[in-house]
C-alpha cells in the first residue's frame, strides 16, 4: 500500500480512534504503518478490498470519507472497521494500556473444590423443585 493510501487510512483511522484517556490515536499507534503491514501479512485477502475502499473516498477528509463509506460502500466500511481496530490492538503498548494480556491458559484445577455451590448457591434452585412439564401419559 503506497504512502498516499496509508495517509488516507491514517486520517480515517484517527477519526475512528482519536487519542484519549492517555492512549495514542490510531495513526500514532502505527495503524497505517507497521501494524497495517502486520494485518495484511495475516490477511493478505484484505489488501484489495481495503485499496478499493480507500480509492472510493480519495480526496475526502477523514470525516467525509467515513460518511461516504457508511452510506455508499458497506463492504468498504466493513473492511475499514476490521482493519483499523485490528491494527490498533496488535500494538503491544495498546494492549498493555488496556490491561489486556491476550488469551491466556487458565487450566481448570482438578483439585479445586467446585464453585457451583459456593454459599449454597444451588440450594434454592433445588428447593424449588422441578421446572419441567413431564411427559404426559398417553
Amino acid at each position: 500500500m503506497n504512502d498516499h493510501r496509508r495517509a488516507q487510512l491514517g486520517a480515517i483511522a484517527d477519526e475512528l480512534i482519536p487519542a484519549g484517556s492517555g492512549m495514542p490515536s490510531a495513526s500514532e499507534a502505527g495503524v497505517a504503518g507497521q501494524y497495517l503491514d502486520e494485518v495484511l501479512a495475516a490477511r493478505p485477502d484484505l489488501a484489495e478490498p481495503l485499496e478499493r475502499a480507500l480509492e472510493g473516498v480519495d480526496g475526502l477528509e477523514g470525516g467525509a470519507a467515513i460518511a461516504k463509506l457508511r452510506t455508499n460502500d458497506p463492504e468498504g466500511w466493513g473492511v475499514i472497521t476490521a482493519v483499523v481496530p485490528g491494527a490498533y490492538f496488535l500494538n503491544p503498548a495498546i494492549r498493555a494500556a488496556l490491561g489486556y494480556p491476550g488469551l491466556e491458559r487458565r487450566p481448570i484445577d482438578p483439585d479445586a473444590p467446585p464453585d457451583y455451590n459456593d454459599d449454597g448457591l444451588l440450594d434454592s434452585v433445588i428447593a424449588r423443585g422441578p421446572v419441567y412439564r413431564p411427559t404426559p401419559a398417553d
Partner: protein
Amino acid sequence: MDPDVLIVGAGPSGAIAAKRLAEEGFRVLVLEQGDWPDYSKATVHREDFPLTAGRDWGWDPNVRRAAGDYPIDDSESDITALMWNGVGGGTVVYAAQWQRNMPSDFRVRTLDGVADDWPMTYEDLEPYYVRVERDFGISGLAGDTAFPPGEGPPLPPVPLGPAGKRVAKAHNELGWHWWPAPLAIATRDYGHLKACQQVGTCLQACHYQAKGSADLTHWPRALELGVELRTRARVRELTRRPDGLVGGAVYLDADGNEHEVKAGVTILCANGVGTPRLLLLSDDLANSSGLVGKRLMMHPFGTVVGVFEEDFRAWQGPWGQYIHSLEFYETDASRGFVRGAKWGLQPTGGPFSMTSAYPWGAENEIWGEGFQDAVRGRLGHSIMWGIIAEDLPEESNRVVLDPIGTDEQGVPGAKIEYRLSENSRRLVEFHQQRAQESLLAAGAYTTVVAPFIRATGWHLLGTTVMGTDPNTSVVNPQGRTHDVPNLFIFDGSVWPTSAGMNPTATIAALALRFTEQLIESRRDQRIAA
C-alpha cells in the same frame, strides 16, 4: 468387497453410526465432502487470531468457500445457514453447549396444540443421552431441575467463575432457574480429549483438543475398527435400483473424477441442508410425501449483553457457557406465543470484539471521542445471554435445489427460503426483555439487546421429518425412509420440531438410537446385495 453400509457425512451423526456399526463388525464406508480440520490454524495465542479466525474457522460456506463447501442461496431467507463441511462436521466449530431436549419437546402437539409430537419420548431417548455424554466427554452436573432425574454427564462442570456466580445469585433472588452448564468441554483429561484451558475460542476449533468434537471423540476409534473414510468425496447423487432400493452413491473426488460405490444400506448424515439437497439431486428420492426439504427450522437467536463495574476478565472462559437457564423454556400462553428458549451465559471476547457491530449495535457505536474508555468499560466487564429460540415447522420454510448456482464441480447448490414467524418474533422479544432483567438484577449498569442479524443459522433441522405416517413424514421412527427400505437418515433433518436447545446432544442420542435399531433389525433389513 462392497461395504455393508455407506454413510454420507462424517459429522457427529455419521461418526456415531460408523463407530457403532464397526464395533458390531459391519464393513462401513464414509464419504465426506470436506477434509480433516487443520488445527495448526487454531493459532489462539497469536495476537492476530481475531483477524484470521473468521477466515480459517468461519461458519458460512458462502464466505468460507473451502474445499468441501457448496453454495447456498440465502437471498430469500431471514437467516443464513451455517455449517462446517468436514470430518467432525458442526462439532468442529460449535460452542459445545450440550443440551438435552426437555420432555415437553417430544410432545409439542399434545401439550401446546401446535406442530407435531415426536414418535418417541424423552424417556425413550434418555439411555442414549447417557451413552453419548460418555462418548463425547460431557461436563456438567446431574440433578438439573429442568429435567427428569437420572444419570448426569461423566465430568464435573466448568467453573461458574465470578460472572456465572453473580448471575446465578441474581436468579436465586428472582426465583429463576439456572444450573451449571452442560458442555462438550472436558474438564479433565478424558480419552482423546485434554482438560480445558478456558481460552474461550471454542467457536474457532479448540487448540487444546478439549472440546468434544467428533473428529476427536469418535473418528480415531472408528478408523481403528476399520471404518473406511474417504475425504474430499462429494456425493453427487444416490443410485436407484429397479427393485426400489438404493444401490449406493456416485461421488466426485478432489480432482473431479467420478466414482460409484455400492453398499447394502445407505445412511445420510449430511445435515438439514445437505441431506435434502442430496435427495433432491437424486431425482426426488424418498419424497412421496412431498416433504423433503420442507419444515426447515434454524432457531432464531437473540443476544443480550450486560456491562458491569466489576472486572470479570470475561474476554475468555469456557466459551460454551458458564451457566444455563431454562426458566422461560416451557409454554405460558399468557405471554402471547407458544414454546420458549434456552439461555446460555457467555463471555464476550477480547478488545476486537468490543468494537464490533454485533452484539453492541449501531446505537452503541464505539468510534470517535471516548473510544479507549469505551473499550475499557466493556472489555472483561461484559457478559451476555445467548438465547436459542424454538421455531415451529412450516412447509414454506424450506430447502430447494438452487436453479442457478453450482458447486465447483457443477453440482447444483442449495437454496433456502425461510421467514421468521410472528410467534418467533414475539418469543425472541419476550426473552430478550427477561434476559435484560436478569442482567440488571445481577448488577449490570447497562444492557444491550443485540441487533437481529442473519448469520445465526447454526442449527439446521426438520427437512426430512420423522413420523409414523408415510403421507406426512419422510422417515419412520427408526430413521428409515418410508419410500426406500435401505435408505436411512440419521441427522438433524429428521426432527419433527426444533426444541429451543442447542441440538447436538439430541442429534447424537438419536443417531445412536437409530444405529442400535438398525443393528437390532439387521436380520430383517433389506439390502442392495
